[in-house]
């Protein structure tokens, strides 16, 4: 099985206590729900953010039916507050 790298930013990195994680990923791809399941197994402290965090894949927001594949760079994007 391959892997997806997941970057944490802002409140997500605070909650996880680290800046990134790797998550196992089948060649056929995984959906957001499975990504969360595997992430929370490693970092249960991220659970409270799940409702507000969006997932990015390779610097684009992941569509609701989007899939992650091995080698993708994912990111947890908490509500942004630039400017």
């Amino acid at each position, binding site marked *: 099985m391959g892997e997806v790298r997941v*970057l944490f*930013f*802002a*409140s997500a990195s*605070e909650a996880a206590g680290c800046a990134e994680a790797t998550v196992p990923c089948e060649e056929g791809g995984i959906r957001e729900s499975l990504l969360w399941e595997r992430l929370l197994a490693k970092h249960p402290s991220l659970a409270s953010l799940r409702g507000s965090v969006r997932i*990015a894949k390779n*610097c*684009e*927001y992941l569509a609701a039916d989007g899939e992650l594949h091995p080698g993708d760079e994912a*990111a947890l*994007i*908490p509500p*942004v*507050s*630039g*400017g």
Partner: protein
Amino acid sequence: MDVRIQFTDQKIGPSNPATTDGAGAVVEFLGVVRGVERDAKISGLVYEIYEPMADRMVRRIVEELDASYPCLTFQLVHRHGFVPVGEAAIHLRIEAPHRTEAIRMLEHFMNRLKTDVPIWKSGFVPC
């Protein structure tokens, strides 16, 4: 349209006053860190940027808005790291043939920035 994006941990300097040929309007925006956050006095804010994605999102947004509000140039500087009170966290400079497009671009871009561009006030430093 010429789009320039810079992320920096340095103080944002004065902008180049030269104007592009054909520009009838130049709009600039500075977003300045204020001394109070959530009712507490602060000495500054800390910003965090997911740079490659922020760059891509900004270009996407500007391209979309340019279809409705055609502009000539778009320059964005956004700071990361600690930004002291009174200094700008963001600087925008937009040139367009006419003022309405430049103002609309500013307005809509800032709205989109605050919903879609991965930049965070990731902390504030109390006085």
